């Protein structure tokens, strides 16, 4: 979370991937870093123990969300 916020504060849009159990911590970190509500992209836990193919499935499922978080929101 902090690494992503590091870039945001320097004017570079950043998106961070976290796993579900980490959400409350991420919410807290954003608050403490002075960016309450900063949105991570959340995927199911675990990731570290998965095979390459399984990790790639996770990536496929979340790619669109990452793209959206990095772009300017459409109005309306």
């Amino acid at each position: 979370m902090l690494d992503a916020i590091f870039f945001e504060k320097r004017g570079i849009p950043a998106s961070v991937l976290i796993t579900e159990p980490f959400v409350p911590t991420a919410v807290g970190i954003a608050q403490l870093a002075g960016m309450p509500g900063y949105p991570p992209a959340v995927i199911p836990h675990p990731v570290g123990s998965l095979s390459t193919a399984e990790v790639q499935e996770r990536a496929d499922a979340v790619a669109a969300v990452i793209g959206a978080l990095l772009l300017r929101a459409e109005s309306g």
Partner: protein
Amino acid sequence: MTRQHDGIDVEDFWQAIEACYEQSWTDGLPVVPPTESLVARMLAAGPWAEDDVLLFEPARNLTVTAYKAAINAVMAGCRPEYFPVVGAALHAVGDPTFELHGPATSTGGAALMVIVNGPVRQRLGIHGGANLLGPGFRANATIGRALRLVLLNCLGCQPGVLDKSTQGWPGKYSLCFAEDEESSPWEPLSVARGFKPGQSTVTVFAAESGHNVLSHGTSSPERLLALFADAMAGLGSLSPGRSVIVVAPEHADHLKRAGWSRARTQAWLYEHAWRSLADLKHVGKIEPAFFTNETMLQWLYRCADGGVPTPPDVDTLDRVVAQDEAVRVHRGLGPDDILLCVGGGQAGGHSAFFPSWSRGRSVPFVTKEVPA
């Protein structure tokens, strides 16, 4: 509570009800005005602290705390003891695999179906018998409603704004019921979903409007299930998505006496719920967007000799060719896409089939434990 919470001050309860309408805080029906004391009581009935996160919606960066959920649960008319079930349901629809953003905002108009299992049903009076899908039961009506109010009020799913449903359907008001485990020929749904007997759970599903499956003429499993499969194969909702079947006790009984297991029933339904590719093309079910969508192409051609035509030729996919009569397109991708539960009155051969939201794969079933 010592914290000063945001809200509006009103003279009396009539004004409070109207104020909630003016603020667009309702689902169209009047809500119970959420006072500090009512919300405090609701919150106290759950295991969560005020700021605990019950649901995080990443697409729009929205965090629903226990506090906000409690306000909406009060508005829905929940008794405080229902709050753990509401929280479990929020936890379920907030599961990353459920990808709530889709069902909550697409044109498909999904209702959030909540199926409850375990001892919590009796403890709270969550109804699974006659008229379980209809009005008249406080727990059913208000738990489901609390979910919808959270979507409306916390996740911004206001119709026309973020909720882009073309038509929606009444299930969106509330769609919560108990499985009638006692009338089921099989293990409880919760156990089939991997939980231990005796655990209380909620299972959520993004549902389009249901089809009545009416049969009073047979006790043969194949004939009965053929009728279900026919409903499931309806072209209007045919997709590679999931299905929920709420089997009436009378129908469940036929399957029980014939000794059909849950797995066998699911497999039979999957095998028999199909239409030919020609049928789909005749009614314009094939959209240009499918031509570049791997999932849709695999779904359409998984039973075809030679698989997906390579390269997928726009003309071929749009135009009926002779082989298409023989290509079967099944509802869903396999028997596990069909969830069976039992519910309804003891008398009456009326079961229901609910297709999943979306023309595509939709989102999976998610089951969570209800905290004590």
